[in-house]
């Protein structure tokens, strides 16, 4: 795979964003964001609606110009429009961005021609996203999930090195979602770089090498999902079948911070799972007891619920990202 390499140096990062800010009126949509995505990395960008994800992604894609700061893809600025850089980038379109009154195959053929990609890539890409059976169906007649898969195919048909995907699984049923995960893992295995925005935290945890969580236009954290969860302040939960233990006894166990009854279980929240389990074993036995460690979702909710506090910890956490 061609990589822009400085003479004698490491390959240029796929994406380098440095001190980028963007203001709309008096609202700072992107506030001094710096991040770097290595070639071959699967990078997740998370954050609540309105946190500035779309703006940041559009600045990376070169669709918007940053007010301040610099962006480079493979060492080159995506703004203004650079037609020699664009073939290396694939962007998932909106599920409405289809040439009207065309079949799925005709649409994708047109997109392929825009990139000068070979026509054989069209059938192969339809196969990849599982739309071979719909090749002769008009785009207007496709279901929501099929439209979304065609939009993803539009980003992949010219075999780009850097792929931007925006909530690609939002309209997919569970089977199609798992099938797409396999496609994405295949792309990563082939050395492609993927920038992924999603609201599905299980998906981010499953797929991404590293994620950044954007809150109020700032990056609250950047790290691997594993280390984020590990460093989480969110408590783990021990679930006991109802009636095994009364609430007062549970609350008296050392290390238990909160006790509640939820969905037929007694839930003990704690930061000291080991000692609490030992105590539960002694009092009531461990039969049918489940433990749930903090998930990425807990980390996410924790960070996005307290933006002011989270922004304060951003600097320290961001510095502890991978080597």
């Amino acid at each position, binding site marked *: 795979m061609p990589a822009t390499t400085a003479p004698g140096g490491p390959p240029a990062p796929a994406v380098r964003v440095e001190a980028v800010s963007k203001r709309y009126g008096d609202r700072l949509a992107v506030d001094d964001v710096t991040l770097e995505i290595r070639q071959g990395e699967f990078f997740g960008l998370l954050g609540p609606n309105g946190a500035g994800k779309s703006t940041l992604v559009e600045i990376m894609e070169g669709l918007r110009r940053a007010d301040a700061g610099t962006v480079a893809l493979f060492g080159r600025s995506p703004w203004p429009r650079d037609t020699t850089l664009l073939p290396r980038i694939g962007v998932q379109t909106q599920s409405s961005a289809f040439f009207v009154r065309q079949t799925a195959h005709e649409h994708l053929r047109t997109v*392929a021609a825009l990139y000068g990609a070979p026509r054989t890539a069209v059938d192969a890409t339809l196969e990849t996203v599982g739309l071979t059976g719909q090749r002769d169906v008009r785009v207007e007649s496709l279901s929501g999930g099929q439209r979304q898969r065609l939009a993803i195919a539009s980003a992949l048909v010219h075999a780009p090195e850097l792929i931007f995907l925006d909530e690609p699984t939002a309209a997919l049923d569970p089977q199609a979602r798992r099938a797409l995960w396999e496609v994405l893992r295949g792309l990563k295995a082939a050395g492609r770089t993927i920038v992924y925005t999603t609201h599905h935290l299980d998906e981010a945890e499953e797929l991404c090498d590293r994620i950044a969580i954007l809150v109020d236009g700032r990056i609250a954290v950047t790290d691997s999902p594993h280390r984020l969860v590990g460093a989480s302040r969110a408590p783990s939960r021990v679930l006991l079948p109802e009636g095994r233990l009364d609430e007062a006894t549970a609350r008296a166990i050392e290390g238990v911070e909160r006790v509640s009854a939820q969905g037929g279980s007694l839930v003990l929240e704690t930061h000291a799972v080991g000692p609490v389990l030992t105590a539960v074993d002694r009092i009531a036995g461990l039969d049918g007891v489940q433990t749930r460690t903090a998930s990425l979702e807990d980390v996410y909710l924790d960070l996005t619920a307290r933006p002011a506090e989270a922004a304060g910890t951003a600097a320290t956490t961001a510095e502890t990202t991978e080597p």
Partner: protein
Amino acid sequence: MSAYTALTGAGYRAQVRDRTTLFFTFAFPLLFLVVFGLIFKGQAVEESGLSYLSYTAAGVLSWGVANAAVFGIAFTLMQWRSDDILRLIRMSPAPLTAVIGSRYAIALVVGAVQSLLFVGVAMLPVFGLEPASGWPLLVPVLALGVTTFLLLGVIIGSFADTPESVAAVANFLMLPMAFLSGSFFPLDSMPEWLRTVSLVMPLRYLNDAVSHALAGRGDSSDVLVGCAGLLAFAVVFGAVAMKTFRWTRSS
């Protein structure tokens, strides 16, 4: 396959698969021909000796071709921008000239079919149009007319974000222009100052040139002046279109 060929192919398929729009694009000028033909049957325009019908046929034809060129591209660009098709093209290495060029090829074909159909119907015995000897000049004149009004349509399509605003703006420009440029009523019957005003309207030049080529009004200098006027407007519209073109709503 080049981006231009692919976009032209997609545009052609979209056009012929939309039967309703296709039908009315061609039926609209014919409707005016029928209405004016019925109103003014057998009347002659004062002092010119031309039948009113041959006068009005030329005017309606130039207005019809110009109208289709403006609306066709303005709607397409607005729709492509709001559907994010332009964003998709913007993110590919395809040049803007491939986008506009593909729409230009389609507009030329639409204009040619419109003209053939219109002149053919006007030559039926009911209407009795007899084309003047200079009729082959219609080909370059109408092609230039399509060019000028397509570029005007690019500007409208870059400003308008909804179908309603395309229709409002395009009609606001094209309908008064049709009357003031003498497409529907002879300029000779208008006050002097209005005739002067018509000189700043591109449709006036298309009318004059088509009137000579099709109906034999005036002389061959009308064709030359008409073409020069259209060319000048094409350059101005082209320059403004380049300045105002937007790939996405936010850019």
